[in-house]
């Protein structure tokens, strides 16, 4: 255990070191950095964090992070309301948004089903999805969950819940990463890519 000159520094270091990817050395460096700056720098930071924590909301349609009861994506006029892309987490929404290839809406589940890990369907935003696609203009649900057994199970399960509605159900394509060499692709991915090949344009 490191010896700190001050209890105040020690407390601050301990709090910051709780963040992922930050050890106590880095935390100490950040703390000393803040002390070197003007007081306003630190206060601006703590105020931003406080407001983030207290004022953050989750969109009542898609459960994405929002500043208001509805998120900026759900509010945007130009988005295609016939498409809903189902993802695990807000990070996944940001990842798809960064591609600038998708104009539809989202639905954030908050995880994937795994009874072994103590996650059952009722812990996820599945009911609201079912309700939402019934009541909205949604025509297609696109599953963009991780290509793991949990992800596949979750897709299969939700698809079962949606089977009575006149919807198109799709999943994002899985294939060989662009710029990689074919011989290094794993067999399952390559096999699936061959089976779900696309016609050449």
């Amino acid at each position, binding site marked *: 255990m490191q010896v700190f000159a001050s209890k105040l520094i020690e407390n601050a270091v301990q709090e910051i070191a709780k963040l992922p990817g930050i050890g106590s050395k880095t935390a100490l460096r950040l703390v000393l950095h803040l002390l070197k700056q003007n007081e306003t720098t630190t206060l601006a930071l703590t105020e931003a964090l406080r407001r983030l924590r207290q004022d953050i909301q989750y969109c009542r349609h898609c459960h994405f992070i929002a500043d208001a009861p509805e998120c900026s994506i759900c509010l945007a006029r130009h988005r295609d309301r016939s498409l809903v892309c189902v993802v695990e987490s807000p990070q996944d929404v940001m990842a798809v948004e960064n591609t600038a290839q998708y104009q539809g809406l989202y639905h954030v589940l908050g995880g994937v*089903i*795994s*009874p*072994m890990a103590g996650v*059952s*369907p*009722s812990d996820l935003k599945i009911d609201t999805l079912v309700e939402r696609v019934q009541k909205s203009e949604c025509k297609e649900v696109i599953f963009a969950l991780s290509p793991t*057994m949990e992800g596949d*199970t979750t897709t*299969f*399960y939700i698809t*079962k*819940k949606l089977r009575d509605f006149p919807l198109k159900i799709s999943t994002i394509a899985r294939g060989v990463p662009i710029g990689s060499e074919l011989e290094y692709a*794993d067999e399952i991915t390559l096999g699936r890519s061959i089976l779900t090949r696309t016609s050449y344009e």
Partner: protein
Amino acid sequence: MYLEQIELQNFKNYASLSLHFTPGIQALVGENGSGKTNLLDAIHYLSLTKSAFNPIDQQNIRHHEGYFTIKGVFKRENSPETVFCGYEKARKKIIRHNELTYEKVSQHIGRFPVVMIAPQDQDLILEGSEARRRFFDSVIAQIDAEYLQNLLHYQYYLQQRNALLKTYYEQRQWDEDLCQTYDAGMLHFGQKIYARRQHFLQDFQPFFQSQYQQLAGQKESPQLSYHSDFGQTDIAQAFIKAREADQRLQRTTVGIHRDDFIFQLESYPLKKFGSQGQQKSYLLALKLAQFAIVRQELALKPILLLDDIFDKLDDARMQALVEMVSQQTFGQIFLTDARPERSLSVLAALNTEKQMFFIQQGKLNKTQIF
């Protein structure tokens, strides 16, 4: 294909060991407890990425140490191939082939096949169905890379389904759709595993029968059969029928995880009615048939690991085995014996390259070529 060199660090009772082998017979001799079986186990590990005796890797580390490594150099058509297995406490084990780490162990299984004949084989007769499934699964996995993958997938759905049944028991909320989701996974992979096991047994049968006849003479006929819930006409229905029982018992009571392989002699259970000698013949025939089928499917001779074979076999069965050795049936052979003079006299007559390693408390004492 044969093992040319092995290097151990902190594996079981070996602090550090390096040995060179020839393609012929390698006899490991030494007192009980010196480490002969552990060395065979290290070779088993290189082939199947796990110990033949202890699935808990933590316990395969030498006492008071933090890791073990096993390195082997195999020769295949004169070019060397290295296999590295390393395990450090609380870490994922690492398997490398020619310096490359595998993504999945199933890519390795079958590249350097071994067949081990050990006193523990009798567990196949004495213990429950799990021991028999493990044996046949490991044989099939050596000749079919997809099989292991299917088993892992099935296992995944089974564990999730059992977890679901447990939650139901605790919380009394039943999600039929989720259960059916896991049923679908188990049915899909269960069907593949069932078909493969069935098909395998058909191929295995003639090898097994002929090995048994060679060992025991024409006197009696052994039976080996496969029983599975998947043999029913409507297995999907069977899953649904078992719902209530599953919920009550908090585990899945139907599926290929309950398959069994039935050992019989003249239609009577081997375990209850087979004599000591008949049981030995049956086990040896299983292992020699394993050798034969792997050899046929992979077109190479598995390395044979014979643990305390001279203690276990009587003269007649020993004679049959020695006969096979002299007919060049096998490739490289490792055998252990606590009595060097016995090994010397049995093996002396054989016209094969032979080496004897004297092991003492986890160290090589001397080597003798004879």
